[in-house]
């Protein structure tokens, strides 16, 4: 520890007064990663809570670990299953081959995301003379987890750069962004490189393999109105999909951790589920009114299927709860979460071109969140005005 501290101490003059001034944000980011600095409260309250932004963010990363590990195995499992190397079943799931396949695909993606994103973050920290914010520590894991396993690394890099630049830095950086950066990256990739983001090849590493396919549950629903997977498969995660989104169970473990630590908003998660269930039940009720048999069959899917298939669970737990892009007021969070769930299922069922409705629903609600907050804040203002009128009357 002393050795690391000495290293930082000896290089500090070079980046503060010396020739390498431009590297100060990087130096500072690395140093504060190793050591929480010895800053003392200098104004206001003299004691402070031991939590800081780094610990808040690393808590989210811990919560993502189950989904990440499951994603590594599942990527390999889906690939080997599709090309016929293995039989389906748990016996062939937790194997070294699956893990290796997944690791070789996913770890480079994580590395590329971090390098692309942090390079831009550090540049802006230097340009705007502030410290590197921790928000991207989470985004850097989230972005790979919501990509198909087969996406080329350069697309990941460009999507990440787009998300950090247009999604975050143009608005003033961490804390100021309107859209969730990770979903901005996915939306960019989705619309810029649609062939790599949808279809029945990309989810199991089959882009260069002819003759076999592996469609996601939602993809199947959108084209045929039925699905070859059971609800238990969907809950446990033995289905093709984006890397981190398939196992509702692993996501649920993360959700419990986020709620227990108080870092994730349980209000948003719960209300998103309520919204999805509401929409699912409405669809069940009106399924007979649809014209095509595929639509009738898709609308009649039991409402709880929607909670386990596709990216709904991942979105509701890790994306919708991003405190910056979600509603900021406590009442607003209920409305925001409910509508995220409601629109997710609506878009996914009614628009076969976008089977993954949750991404669009959250981005849409990110844009709407300030409006929700506006009305919540206004209600508080009106209450105060009313009080004055009662006094005067």
């Amino acid at each position, binding site marked *: 520890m002393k050795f690391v501290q000495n290293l930082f101490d000896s290089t500090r003059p070079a980046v503060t007064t010396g020739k390498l001034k431009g590297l100060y944000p990087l130096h500072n980011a690395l140093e504060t990663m190793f050591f929480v600095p010895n800053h003392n409260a200098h104004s*206001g309250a*003299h*004691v*402070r809570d031991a*939590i800081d*932004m780094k610990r808040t963010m690393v808590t989210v990363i811990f919560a993502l670990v189950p989904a990440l590990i499951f994603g590594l195995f599942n990527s390999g499992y889906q690939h080997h299953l599709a090309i016929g190397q293995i039989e389906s079943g748990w016996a062939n799931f937790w194997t070294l081959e699956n893990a290796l396949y997944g690791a070789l695909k996913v770890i480079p993606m994580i590395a590329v995301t971090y390098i692309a994103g942090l390079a831009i973050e550090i540049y802006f920290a230097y340009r705007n003379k502030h410290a590197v914010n921790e928000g991207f520590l989470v985004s850097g894991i989230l972005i790979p987890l919501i990509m198909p396993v087969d996406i080329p690394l350069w697309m990941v890099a460009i999507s990440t750069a787009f998300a950090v630049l247009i999604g975050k830095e143009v608005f003033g950086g961490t804390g100021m962004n309107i859209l969730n950066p990770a979903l901005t990256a996915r939306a960019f990739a989705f619309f810029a490189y649609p062939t790599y983001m949808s279809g029945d090849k990309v989810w199991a590493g089959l882009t260069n393999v002819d003759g076999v396919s592996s469609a996601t549950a939602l993809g199947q629903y959108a084209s045929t109105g039925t699905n070859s997977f059971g609800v238990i498969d969907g809950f446990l995660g033995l289905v093709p999909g984006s890397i981190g989104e398939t196992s509702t169970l692993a996501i649920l473990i993360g959700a419990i951790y986020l709620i227990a630590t108080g870092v994730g908003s349980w209000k948003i998660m719960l209300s998103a589920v309520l919204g999805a269930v509401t929409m699912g039940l409405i669809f069940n009720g009106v399924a007979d009114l649809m014209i095509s048999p595929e639509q009738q069959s898709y609308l009649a899917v039991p409402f709880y299927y929607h909670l386990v298939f596709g990216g709904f669970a991942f979105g509701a737990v890790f994306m919708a709860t991003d405190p910056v892009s979600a509603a900021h007021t406590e009442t607003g969070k209920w409305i925001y979460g409910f509508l995220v769930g409601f629109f997710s299922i609506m878009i996914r069922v009614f628009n076969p071109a976008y089977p993954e409705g949750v991404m669009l629903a959250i981005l849409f609600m990110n844009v709407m969140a300030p409006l929700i907050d506006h009305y919540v804040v206004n209600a508080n*203002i009106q209450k105060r005005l009313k009080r004055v009128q009662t006094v005067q009357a």
Partner: protein
Amino acid sequence: MPNLHTVRKGLDLPILGAPDALVDGHLSASVYAVRPSDFRGLVPKLAVKEGDRVLAGDVLFTDKADPRIRITSPVSGEVARVERGEKRKILAVVVLADSQQEYRKFTSGTPANREDAINWLLESGAWSLVESRPYGRIANPDAEPKAVFINGMATEPLAVAPAVALAGREEDFAMGLQVVGLLSKRTVLSIAASETAPALTKASGVELHQFKGPHPAGTTSVHINQVSPLNKGEVVWTLNYQDVVILGHLARTGNLKLERVLALSGTGIAKPRAVTAVAGASLEAFLNAELKSGNYRVISGSVLTGTKVSKTDYLTYYASQLTAIPEGEGTDFFGWVLPSFAKWSVSRTLFSWLTPSKKYDLNTKQHGEDRAFVVTGLYEKVFPFDILPMPLLKAMWAKDLEKMEQLGAYEVVPEDFALCEVVCPSKQELQKLAEEALDLLYTEMN
């Protein structure tokens, strides 16, 4: 129970170093100083010069904006010097105290009516103890407050219970209540639901309200918010129970004795207890005897809202607490990710929630760097007002006066954001932000 208010949101800091519940000793000093910066918004106009003899109760300086507002000397003696800073700004008026204290005699006895009471308080300088809301400044004597709120509670960390501080001073307190009762049609006394001291529970001539719950249940802002929320254009005056004792003493004897019971607490103090102390006392000799050796921060006031002072400094004018806690030292290797049982956090990202009754030797460490607002919903947990803290703070940040007004800026003083500041993971300086914003609001509105 009538008038019982339960406050659910808030936080009692689990901090070690609570004072013993007895008054033992006096903070004796030979030098006293009054700092204009202790009075929010006051621009001083000196009434003395170096070498002048003053009695306790003689005016040292007045408010430039309203010369009727006098700040008087807490002790008799000789004006040793006037400390000045940049642009000759007056930092402190220092008085060398006589060994035998002499008081300027003011009229004793309860004044006949409101006008007499106000003039008598203005003349003696005791008016400095009457604060007004909004803004939390010395009251404007011409205002017509809708009520006077007397705070008979002490929920700040490491404070002394009012029952302890009032013991032996019941007569002065009762007399003080009579004086305060003249100032407005409505006088509200707020006490803790668990209060047993008869001086408080059986106080006469006041509207009694009881409060229970964690800090800030004992702050005047919460009391006003619960009993009679402040609307635009309305004014209330506020006093602390110890100030009422000072007014009562003035009425009984004619002497303005600015003496309070001071909670001497924190882990840096060898023997945490209560002592009596006169406003502005020099701390040097006293702390040499009371402070443990080591690197401690001395705070005139509580750890939430007090002023950092050096060992050679003076007690602030309104202080009823003197706290010493360890200054944070050293860096923390991977302190943001490693689990630790020694650290305290309201969030459950550390383990302190497993031991809710454990107390900590909290130091002044900030535990992280300044960041942008990111996390939402945290301030709300410790902010028991019908006010949205984040939107209000953002309006303050943007200096949007209209929004501030609409969101309830008149109902708060900077100290109300102390707990938000404690729990903030972005380490924002909220009290400073609120202070600047409210100053701006005051300037624009007056």
